[in-house]
């Protein structure tokens, strides 16, 4: 028996071996894009003049170096998600970049050329406040880290702690900033809110307190030093008070008293309601900061000021100016100012002044050209020939940050490049006089939801479709139509041949194969699709699935940061000449109010259809298979009064809804109250609750609810048994899998629950409780099975469990499925397995007709995407092999599921932090398109049953055609020879 099992396993292994791609297929139909996220800190590598690096530390806890020529990544380090990997500060000196990570938990130094780790030290606990590099005699050798209660100084070379000192009077004083200007002293600045400033001066050598100032410097208006104060010139702490509309200055070396300088005395006026902000620059941590600094007086108003002998003097007024930045190269420091180029800015101002109402209109940010100019920091004079035009993307956001890389040209004048960060998280790198070198769409590092939409047919394809779509009108006209369309096809083919011929004469480099929005068309097998991606920042993208090129982008302004999105395809491309239509439901989680954004998924343009205004908070939406006269599917929106509104709501639709109302049901799951409830639609579009299931939220919490995907097809209605009878599947389209987790997380008492419930009737089909198990639970619900993964606290391992539902040996009703008429409960089979890794996300493959066997696509935290055949997760896997089970091709049960390396569909293309996997059918039954998104985006195709409907990539056309031709000629020749021979014989 053991031998038999072994043989069988061998068979399985051999059978399943050709899953991975071959070496020459790498990159042929898959691509990966790597992102870093919204930039929080950025530094240009300035220690070498010709350096091409820009360091970025992002809000997604990524530290990376970008190539300033191409925008590609040199290297990238992805830290833990959440606050544990949060990058608090980025300091750069020479070849080292020092990072404070995880609220002051770790101090790390990276070598920026290759991205290697120099050292890492664990800091003492305490919440992080501030960090700075400390220099002495023009040498920067230390880094000071200020925490809530202590300050520590570390060597830059090896991270060793030089000294650590507890801060005095930490109960009352809130220490917020640390400053050093290279004179051997470290200043720690703290504040007793609304009372006074506290300053502690430490000696760099041994951490001895040289001076301590408390109580004497009154500052009742101050509560946040970092927000309102900077150090300027020779250690002059300069603060701005928005309430008192004045400067306060304090010499850190003398620490006598704050001097007040009203802004009026400098003829400065703050925009009403604006909190003025100061911006200073310290080019070298071992030297004093510049005595010039910027004061922002309004959203688009900056003032360059200079501190001279304790006196502030206004140097230059910049209005309108969107962003300002300092940059230093060599000994020269310049100020870059970005200002709108033409009058359209007034529009943008209007938009800004609007209260942040959720209005998602494309008119919000009109096309703006901005210009960046350089000004000498010392004199405030504009430098000649330093204008740089920035054409803002009309579908992008407003510029948010400006990073300037200045360099000395050969004639000793200052040249520069600018990196602009806009509020849609886009990084644009621009060279003089306005050439965009690269753009990075960092919003794509946070994709929330996506859909794949078929590309439109070409004109000729549409013509053909039209021919078959139209009603028959007479034989003759049909023939004529057929002939004409064939003629058009011929014409197109000849045109294609001519183009091929024409292109062949040109050198290869000139032939452009770029996919643009104009030449988009469906390919033969519908393998190329439009990926519509919705990102958390509110930017929508249209990406070509074949190349990964971004074909359109659209930024929705005023999307609340914690919005929930739901993307629905209302009309596909199949209804020419009606344009395809997607609808995005955006719901503000705070107010509950929702808005609809209706757009064309191919071109990204906002649709002319006006979405209905939604005055009530929206609970859910559901897409009905009904269509209006324009072939748009009907979207039902359920508000908090459980009233339903339809979109589009034409008369036709309402009539259809009235007719269909009796068969339209919907369910709502309120996780906070543990309530599942089902509703029925009445003909007057009101609703009626028909069932309710309460899961007490004190005991267990509903984690997720999974229905079946509406576009899923199941070809086979049953499974063939070994004795050739059929076990029919229980294919309930209304079945929901509800996953609950216990609130008690103790490892002995925690459990997870799976509830299979009929969404129409509320009938509980099956209930399973997994004791001593804990989430996070990942669940896939498809066909007649539910697969879920959990952490078993008892055995301390990840486990998979599969539930399959069967109707039995006979179908109750083979023609229609109604949840209301199901007298028999299904048979439930369940089996569990051990999985050697935790998982990030899970999804099942999907094909056109559902003939192809299914695989589970599992995103692993290691960055791999595993394609696990569903065959291995089959509750009918027998423990004892019998003749029948062998006949059925069942693999004998083994508790362990192995991870085979050839099952990784992304070979070495690691996908960091996979959050979701999206699968879509292609025109080929064998092929399923897969997109994995997270920090990176990876697109590929999978063939769960191998490519049974396509010739292989390496199919030898040459061999087969040459053999055919050879045979053909051989027959011709031999025929001729035979004739000759016959004739000769006849002559004899």
């Amino acid at each position: 028996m053991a031998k038999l099992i072994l043989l069988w396993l061998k068979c399985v292994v051999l059978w399943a071996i050709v899953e991975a791609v071959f070496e020459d297929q790498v990159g042929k139909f898959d691509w990966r894009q790597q992102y870093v996220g919204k930039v929080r800190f950025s530094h240009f590598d300035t220690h070498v003049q010709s350096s091409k690096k820009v360091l970025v530390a992002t809000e997604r806890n990524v530290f990376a170096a970008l190539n300033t020529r191409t925008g590609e990544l040199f290297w990238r380090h992805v830290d833990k998600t959440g606050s544990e990997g949060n990058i608090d500060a980025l300091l750069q000196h020479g070849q080292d970049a020092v990072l404070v990570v995880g609220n002051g938990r770790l101090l790390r130094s990276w070598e920026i050329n290759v991205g290697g780790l120099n050292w890492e030290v664990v800091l003492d606990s305490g919440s992080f406040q501030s960090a700075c590099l400390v220099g002495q005699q023009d040498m920067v050798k230390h880094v000071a880290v200020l925490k809530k209660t202590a300050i520590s100084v570390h060597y830059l070379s090896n991270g060793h702690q030089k000294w650590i000192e507890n801060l005095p009077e930490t109960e009352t004083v809130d220490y917020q900033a640390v400053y050093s200007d290279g004179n051997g002293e470290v200043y720690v600045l703290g504040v007793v809110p609304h009372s006074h400033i506290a300053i502690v001066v430490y000696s760099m050598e041994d951490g001895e307190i040289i001076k301590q100032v408390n109580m004497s410097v009154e500052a009742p208006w101050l509560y946040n030093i970092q927000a309102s104060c900077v150090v300027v010139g020779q250690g002059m702490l300069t603060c701005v008070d928005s309430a008192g509309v004045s400067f306060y200055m304090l010499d850190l070396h003398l620490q006598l008293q704050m001097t007040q300088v009203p802004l009026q005395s400098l003829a400065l006026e703050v925009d009403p309601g604006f909190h003025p902000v100061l911006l200073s620059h310290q080019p070298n941590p071992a030297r004093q900061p510049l005595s010039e600094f910027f004061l922002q007086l309004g959203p688009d108003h900056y003032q360059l000021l200079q501190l001279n002998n304790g006196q502030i003097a206004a140097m230059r007024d910049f209005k309108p100016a969107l962003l300002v930045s300092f940059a230093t190269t060599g000994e020269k420091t310049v100020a870059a100012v970005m200002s709108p180029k033409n009058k359209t800015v007034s529009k943008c101002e209007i938009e800004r002044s609007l209260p942040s109402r959720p209005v998602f209109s494309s008119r919000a940010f009109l096309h703006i050209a901005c210009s960046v100019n350089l000004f000498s920091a010392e004199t405030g004079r504009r430098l000649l020939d330093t204008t740089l035009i920035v054409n803002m993307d009309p579908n992008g956001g407003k510029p948010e940050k400006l990073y300037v890389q200045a360099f000395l040209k050969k004639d000793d004048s200052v040249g520069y490049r600018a990196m602009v960060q806009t509020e849609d998280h886009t990084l644009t790198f621009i060279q003089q006089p306005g050439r965009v070198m690269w753009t990075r769409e960092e919003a794509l590092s946070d994709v929330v939801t996506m859909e794949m939409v078929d590309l439109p047919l070409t004109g000729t394809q549409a013509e053909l479709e039209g021919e078959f779509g139209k009603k028959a009108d007479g034989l003759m006209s049909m023939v004529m139509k057929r002939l004409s369309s064939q003629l058009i096809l011929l014409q197109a083919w000849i045109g294609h041949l001519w183009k091929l011929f024409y292109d062949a004469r040109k050198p290869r480099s000139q032939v452009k194969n770029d996919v643009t929005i104009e030449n988009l068309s469906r390919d033969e097998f519908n393998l190329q699709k439009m990926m519509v991606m919705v990102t958390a920042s509110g930017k929508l993208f249209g990406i070509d699935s074949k190349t990964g090129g971004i074909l359109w982008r659209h930024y929705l302004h005023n999307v609340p940061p914690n919005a929930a999105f739901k993307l629905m395809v209302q009309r596909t491309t199949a209804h020419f000449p009606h344009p395809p239509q997607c609808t995005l439901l955006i719901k503000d989680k705070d107010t509950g109010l929702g808005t609809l954004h209706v757009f064309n998924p191919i071109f990204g343009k906002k649709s002319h259809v006006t979405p209905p205004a939604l005055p009530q908070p929206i609970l859910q939406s559901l897409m009905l298979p009904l269509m209006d006269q324009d072939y748009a599917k009907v979207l039902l929106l359920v508000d908090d009064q459980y009233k339903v509104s339809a979109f589009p709501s034409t008369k036709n639709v309402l009539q259809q809804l009235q007719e269909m109302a009796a068969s339209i049901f919907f369910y709502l799951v309120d996780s906070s109250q543990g309530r599942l409830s089902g509703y029925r639609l009445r003909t007057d579009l009101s609703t009626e609750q028909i069932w309710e299931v309460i899961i007490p939220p004190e005991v267990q919490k509903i984690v997720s609810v999974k229905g079946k995907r509406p576009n899923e097809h199941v070809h086979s209605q049953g499974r063939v048994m070994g004795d050739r009878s059929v076990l029919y599947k229980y294919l309930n389209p209304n079945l929901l899998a509800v996953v609950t987790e216990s609130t008690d997380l103790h490892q002995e008492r925690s459990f997870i629950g799976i509830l299979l419930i009929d969404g129409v009737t509320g009938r509980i089909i099956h209930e399973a409780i997994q004791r001593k198990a804990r989430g996070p639970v990942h669940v896939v619900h498809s066909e007649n099975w539910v697969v879920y993964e959990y952490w078993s606290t008892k055995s301390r391992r990840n486990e998979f469990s599969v539930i399959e539902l069967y109707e039995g040996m006979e179908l109750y009703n083979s023609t229609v499925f109604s949840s209301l008429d199901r007298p028999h409960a299904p048979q439930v089979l369940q089996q569990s397995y051990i999985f050697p890794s935790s998982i990030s996300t899970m999804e099942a493959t999907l094909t056109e007709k559902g003939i192809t066997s299914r695989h589970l696509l599992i995103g692993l935290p290691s960055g791999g995407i595993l394609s696990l055949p569903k065959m291995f997760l089959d509750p009918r896997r027998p423990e004892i092999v019998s003749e029948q089970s062998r006949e059925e091709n069942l693999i004998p049960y083994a508790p362990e599921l192995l991870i085979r390396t050839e099952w990784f569909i992304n070979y070495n293309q690691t996908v960091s932090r996979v959050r979701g996997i999206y699968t879509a059918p292609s025109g080929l039954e064998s092929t399923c398109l897969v997109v994995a998104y997270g920090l990176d985006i990876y697109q590929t195709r999978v063939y769960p049953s191998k490519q049974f409907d396509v010739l292989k990539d390496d199919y030898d056309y040459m061999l087969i055609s040459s053999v055919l031709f050879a045979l053909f000629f051989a027959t011709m020749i031999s025929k001729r020879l035979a004739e000759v021979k016959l004739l000769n014989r006849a002559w004899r």
Partner: protein
Amino acid sequence: MASPGGQGGGGALSTRGGGGARRMKWALELSLGNTRSRGDRQGGQGDVVYPIGYSEKPVPDTSIQETDKNLVEKRCWDVALGPLKQIPMNLFIMYMSGNTISIFPIMMVCMMAWRPIQALMSMSATFKLLESSSQQWLQGLVYLVGNLLGSALAIYKCQSMGLLPTHSSDWLAFIDPPQRMEIMGGGMVL
């Protein structure tokens, strides 16, 4: 069977025509020595010149005799019982070939099924053969039964090999997915 002319009947010349013989409607060769080909060959066999109409073989006696009648009867029974006699042989082959589906058993089954069908199709020809027999109808019946048995055996073999669509699983692919009566949607409260 070799053609009788090949053995060289001296008198019959017309069938053995070379190129020259075909051109004429008929020819009678009186001087055998003139024909090259035949003359050479016959000369090789023995230089005997036969007169016209002489045959080397003895002419059979065609008068009907009583024993012949029995012989015809026997011969007809042979024909009629032929299919039945094959059945044990077929059974043996069936047993030997087993129930696995591979090329040889399939070929065997095909042959086993095809032969009776072929025989049944050419039933009229067989009847013609049996015409001369007195028990023609009985023999025909026996022949038919034998062939039917043979084909039944083939079908049984197909059945035991699982080639017949007799189970519900064989029709599984033709079941259409049931139509959905209710429309349902919804989800977690957004």
